[in-house]
């Protein structure tokens, strides 16, 4: 069960960080037009199509003692990030990026632009328009984004294995634990954890569909298309 708690902790950290990074990025992608925008859109969507092992491999190199992020971490904390919880969070943030950003973009883009014009004409700054008009009216999209990134992080396997290895209590998440137990023929324990993950995933997805069918469906389509 330790591994399950670790998975939930990881998923919670990742969704929180993604929401903080994802909101300004999605705002920018939804409302600004510039020539190179499609490149950034492609980068944001990349984890949808990239094999987890490829992403995991590059992240592992970057986090390692000779990688750029590993060096920064060494300089700041006198320790590397590979095979640590921090490294796992970093990799998972990259991996779940589209699951946060795309529902946010979809709901920002669906906003009636005249509401934003009206807000500006009433003297509101961009920030006030964002917090008072865009955020409350995008709530279904935000819930979708958080829930999807949470569920997606909870179930990831390949990236975690590449970056985190399999250290009990530190990087051994539920999905890796299940794999381990099947390898060592502990079917009863594997079954118990698999069932818990199945139930969590189902509940979470029902919530997404319940909150907003329209935006949920659009993101689900990109997920299912993988």
């Amino acid at each position, binding site marked *: 069960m330790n591994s399950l708690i670790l998975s939930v902790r990881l998923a919670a950290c990742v969704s929180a960080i993604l929401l903080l990074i994802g909101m300004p990025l999605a705002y920018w992608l939804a409302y600004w037009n510039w020539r190179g925008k499609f490149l950034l859109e492609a980068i944001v969507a990349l984890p949808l199509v990239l094999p987890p092992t490829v992403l995991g491999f590059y992240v592992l190199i970057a986090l390692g003692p000779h990688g750029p992020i590993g060096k920064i971490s060494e300089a700041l904390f006198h320790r590397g990030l590979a095979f640590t919880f921090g490294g796992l969070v970093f990799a998972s943030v990259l991996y779940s990026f589209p699951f946060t950003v795309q529902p946010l973009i979809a709901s920002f883009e669906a906003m*009636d632009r*005249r*509401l934003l*014009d*009206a*807000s*500006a*004409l*009433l003297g509101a700054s961009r920030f006030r328009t964002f917090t008072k*008009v865009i955020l409350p009216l995008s709530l279904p999209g935000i819930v979708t984004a958080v829930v999807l990134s949470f569920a997606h992080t909870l179930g990831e396997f390949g990236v975690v294995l590449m970056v985190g290895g399999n250290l009990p209590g530190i990087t051994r998440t539920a999905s890796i634990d299940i794999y381990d137990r099947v390898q060592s023929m502990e079917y009863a324990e594997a079954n118990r954890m698999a069932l818990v993950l199945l139930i969590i995933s189902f509940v979470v997805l029902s919530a997404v569909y319940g909150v907003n069918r329209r935006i949920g469906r659009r993101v689900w389509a990109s997920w299912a298309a993988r």
Partner: protein
Amino acid sequence: MLNARLQKARSGAAHSSFVLDVALEIPSGITIVFGPSGAGKSTLLDCIAGLLKPDSGRIEINGEMLLDVQQRIDVPPAKRKIAYVFQSLALFPHMTAEQNVAYGLADIPAPQRASRVKAMLGAFRVEQLANRKADQISGGEKQRVALARSLATSPRVLLLDEPLTALDEGLKKSIMEDLRRWNAAQNIPILYVTHSRAEVDALGERVIVLDQGKIISTGTPHEVLDAPRRSSLAQASGFENLFSGVVVELRESDGVMRVRLVRGASEIETPLGHAALGTTVRLAIRAGDILLATERPYGLSARNVIAGRIISLEQRGTMFVAQVAADAEGAVVFTVHLTLGARRALELEVNRPVWLVLKTYSCHVLED
């Protein structure tokens, strides 16, 4: 006083691209901007509000420069102090009427804000809706809340983009009366955009006619629209009958001329225009200005009596629209509006022979 000189190229579908090129001087009070859809009315308002950037030009309110493209002055919309009510109204659906009106008053201390919101809701007679969510307010009342919200910020100019189009005449009139009463004290310039001829007549104020991005006429509705000089304006302002004809006789002493329609053989007497003998002109006649008679009328002041035959009759609401083919050949078809009662009394049916009766002064000569 709002002064603006603007140029803005708008590209769209082939028929909707135009260059907005206007110079305006708008005094306090209501000024109507009238024109067909695609004439550039909304583009003009968006430029004044700062939502669109003109290619060149300047905008000035009471001597303060808001935009000067050459000098790179461009005050953002949030700082222009211009109120703008869109056709869609754009009330914030997640807020109550009260919160909508308070939205633009964030800088004012809370107690003053509350009393100002109350006063504005009162001025537009929607105080009973204060706690109602915007998406639960009915048409008519929504317009009132939108006006209260825009005017709560004490703007220097009010822009209205057909906000009342969807309402019936009674509601429209009562809202405009409230707006006039409010503006009697504030005395700011109000630009009211519409493509509806009926609204121009109802408001009856100074009107600017915009067509394909240019101002083609300015004056009172009566001066500008009752004697249209351009056929695009005639179509826009509800002249259902437009015909080409050749001037065949000028009777300057009577102030009239005779025009022979290019199709068919009918001749129509019109007021004397600037056209010379033998030139081709366009005639515009309102469907509501044409009389129908079932027998040839005598002893009339109307100078034009044309024989015809009803070829179609269609009820539209409380009105009948008749198509009447003139002459035996039926080359010219007049559209005529009739009341239900007139149709009943004359027992008008399809194929029935009738006489079209037109007053000289109902036949307007256009310049293209």
